[in-house]
């Protein structure tokens, strides 16, 4: 075993925990420094989900991906900042303070994997892993100008990922270039018998820049109202670049988009309201000091331990599952999901990948999105891929006002290889 020292100049506050002396072994990632989002369980290392309610929690086990990284010789150097429990688009919802966008400290790095993205963009680490429930890898990748991939649902084990929305989320790689992303992904992907939703689809691909004949679908809904026209232009240019490399652009439409955001938020808040109910202070988290009877004591603990956004989402999820008028919403959201899936199935009969902007705008200024619903609306372009379970990545494709713009590429189930190739081809062309 070798060791390395890790003392980053973390002006952007990417990390919650850093590990000053890290040992690592042999393997395909030998000595690569990897930052891990703080919702992924690391044995013996505090794992907080950027929440006060998990302050001091030391998991007695490693998430499956952590075992894979260690076995591949990676040096896990720290746990990164995030929106509390993954709930947010800016990393402003962390209980331990925000992370700054390395390209402009007055702007957010995106979320919820903002810390991981900032660590990579600031050059503090070679690569990072994050989680993506509704865009949480792709959004910060776009805002920070790096590459980030949300794998096909089931391709990477979720065992050890502290659940926010089980049916939507995946752990994925983040890096400054497609080649590194691909290397990291080849370690992460594959079957885990402890995760019943895990699928046996390892990834062993080397990115290839030849995309002649690639059919690229361009949905009109991705360039509609709500998308900054300058951002739309930059992305359209990027698609032209793909065409110049031999791809074909084909217009298409996703009618189910109109239900997508509601379906997403109903589903994720419902699952979250259940997943987060276990945080009551008895088995982990700060000790209960209240002398009240258990129900009131739990309430006090959770009020003190959860931030407002988390409590709001738990409320919304509880509404969506509760008996009565709103309780139907969870099941209706599943109908909408099937519609999104059907739309993708239909489109992918005619095209190989779908392209569009990752985010409707560039990185916001801190405090810019104060209304929750306004914040939720910025996820509109990323959530469809989570609802359907298809793979999607973001690759930098230009700037607006000096801030990076991300090109989103969405592929068929288990065809990460193809979207990675398209991203690689683009990256090589503009380099």
């Amino acid at each position, binding site marked *: 075993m070798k060791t390395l020292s890790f003392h980053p100049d973390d002006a952007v506050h990417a990390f919650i925990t850093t590990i000053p002396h890290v040992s690592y072994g042999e393997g395909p990632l030998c000595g690569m420094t990897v930052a891990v989002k703080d919702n*992924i*369980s690391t044995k013996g290392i505090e*794992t907080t*989900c950027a929440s006060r309610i*998990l302050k001091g*929690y030391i*998991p*007695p*086990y490693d*998430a499956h991906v952590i075992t894979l990284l260690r076995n591949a010789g990676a040096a896990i150097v720290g746990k990164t900042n995030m929106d509390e429990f993954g709930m947010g688009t800016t990393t402003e919802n962390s209980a331990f303070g925000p992370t700054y966008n390395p390209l402009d400290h007055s702007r957010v790095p995106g979320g919820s994997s903002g810390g991981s993205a900032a660590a990579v963009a600031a050059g503090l680490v070679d690569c990072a892993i994050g989680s993506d429930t509704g865009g949480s890898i792709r959004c910060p990748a776009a805002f920070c100008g790096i590459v980030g991939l949300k794998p096909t649902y089931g391709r990477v084990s*979720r*065992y*050890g*990922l*502290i*659940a926010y*929305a*089980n*049916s939507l989320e995946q752990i994925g790689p983040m890096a400054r270039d497609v080649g590194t992303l691909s290397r990291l992904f080849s370690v992460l992907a594959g079957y885990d*018998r*402890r*995760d*019943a*939703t895990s699928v046996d689809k390892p990834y062993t691909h080397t990115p290839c820049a030849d995309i002649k004949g690639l059919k690229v679908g361009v949905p009109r809904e991705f360039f509609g109202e709500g998308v900054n026209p300058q951002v739309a232009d930059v992305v359209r240019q990027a698609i032209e670049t793909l065409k110049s490399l031999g791809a074909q652009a084909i217009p298409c439409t996703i009618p189910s988009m109109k239900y997508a955001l509601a379906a997403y938020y109903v589903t994720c808040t*419902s*699952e979250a*309201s*259940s997943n987060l*109910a*276990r*945080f*009551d202070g*008895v*088995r*982990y988290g700060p000790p209960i000091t209240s*002398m009240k009877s*258990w*129900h009131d004591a*739990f309430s006090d603990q959770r009020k003190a331990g959860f931030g407002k956004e988390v409590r709001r989402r738990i409320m919304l999820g*509880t509404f969506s*599952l*509760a*008996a009565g008028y709103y*309780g139907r919403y*969870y099941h209706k959201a599943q109908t909408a999901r099937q519609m999104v899936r059907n739309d993708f199935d239909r489109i992918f009969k005619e095209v190989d990948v779908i392209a569009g902007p990752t985010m409707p705008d560039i990185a916001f200024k801190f405090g810019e999105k104060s209304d929750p619903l306004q914040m939720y609306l910025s996820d509109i372009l990323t959530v469809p891929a989570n609802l359907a379970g298809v793979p999607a990545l973001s690759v930098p494709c230009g700037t607006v006002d000096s801030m990076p713009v991300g090109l989103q590429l969405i592929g068929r189930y288990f065809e990460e290889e193809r979207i990675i190739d398209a991203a690689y081809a683009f990256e090589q062309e503009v380099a």
Partner: protein
Amino acid sequence: MEDFETIIGLEIHCQLNTKSKMFCGCSTDFRDNEPNTHTCPICLGLPGSMPMINKRAVEYALKVAKALECTIREESEFSRKNYFYPDLNKAYQITQYDKPLAERGKLLIDGDHGEKEVRITRIHLEEDPGRSVHMGTTDRGKYTLVDYNRAGIPLIEIVTEPDIRSPKEARKFLNKLRATLEYLNVFDSEKEGSLRVDANISLKGSERVEVKNISSYKGVEKALTFEVTRQKNLLRRGQPVIRETRHFVEARGVTTSSRSKEEEHDYRYFPEPDLLPLRVASWVDAIELPELPDARRERFRTQYGVSLEHAKTLTGELKLADFYEHVASVDPLLAATWTADYLLGELNYRDFSIDAMSSDLFRELLDLIKADTITDKSAVEILRMILDAVKEGRKPERPYEIVKRLGLAKTSGDQITALIHDVIAEQKAAVDDYYAGKSQALNFLVGQVMKKCRGRADPGYLNKLLREILDKKV
């Protein structure tokens, strides 16, 4: 006085005796182990952990479903039942809600008015929560200790239609169900808490009351009898029965109105997103059921010639049925009588299970009875001596040894004849009375012979022989 028809439905939770828990590999065999020593991230509900369904638990549940003649759903799935409680470490229980494993079955029982069918509404799988121990006496000094060794143990829940019409029928249903589960070898009836019962009971026309916390299935008849009386008394006084949940307090034999825990719950069920659905209807064909109680009962009648009553008793418990078949070779009818009537009586009196009697010792005893070596009275004496030894923790003596030591062997035929002649010679007055037609005189003479042989003779045989000899002398 108007009689009220009683309507009862039962919900039975049974722990399956798989080696590992429902959703993780922790051992289910925690007995009296230290708390929290059979837990892992999954059954402790640590963040990031994920469940994995135990295949054998599904197989066991299917076995039960097949034995109860249920229809297996084409596709069934697990759901989350969300509520807060210290012993529920994920704050949800993984159970089955709108798509249970099996539905619409039945169990035949001896009802109050003959054989009847109790319909089974559904059977589903779920996990057991942990165990809370409430501590402290003063209000402010109270707290709860929790042990999660039990959390995650596989349970099947069996729900009946409200077909049961009396507390007695409820007990019979439970006995039959318990026996069936034992025969299927899916549960350990000796393990404390392995079978728990909730009951729904109403008098026709009135509100339904749920009675929870009946932890011994023997307590069910007690609990329901109390509840029926309570409800009848209310109605007779012109008061309504309130729809509520009550707890059974076993020690006092009463049900009490329970408070806050049972307030109207909204469990917000939704499908468990970390588990995939089950499509196991086709597995049922491959399942071979062992001989079940009813079939074994019939076989005891045809193979051993045992009476219906005895057959019912002997097959009522798996271990008892096995015991009987170990000793039946001596003489099936003799064995049946002595097991079902005598042995069970002595066992019940001492609150023993059939485990207390070794089948080898019992077979030896039956051999002695069959060979006419000892009287019935002596046999009972020997039986009691063996059980008393067990009770005191001593190794019981073998029946042969007891017979030898106490000289219990019956007086032989020749010896009895000699004694009879002695008595006839000594008791001239009684003999004359006999010849004069006074039948009591015979009893007196029998008593005298018995005295002389210290009871080592069959009264019936003695009676017959004495009469023969007396009649010959005339």
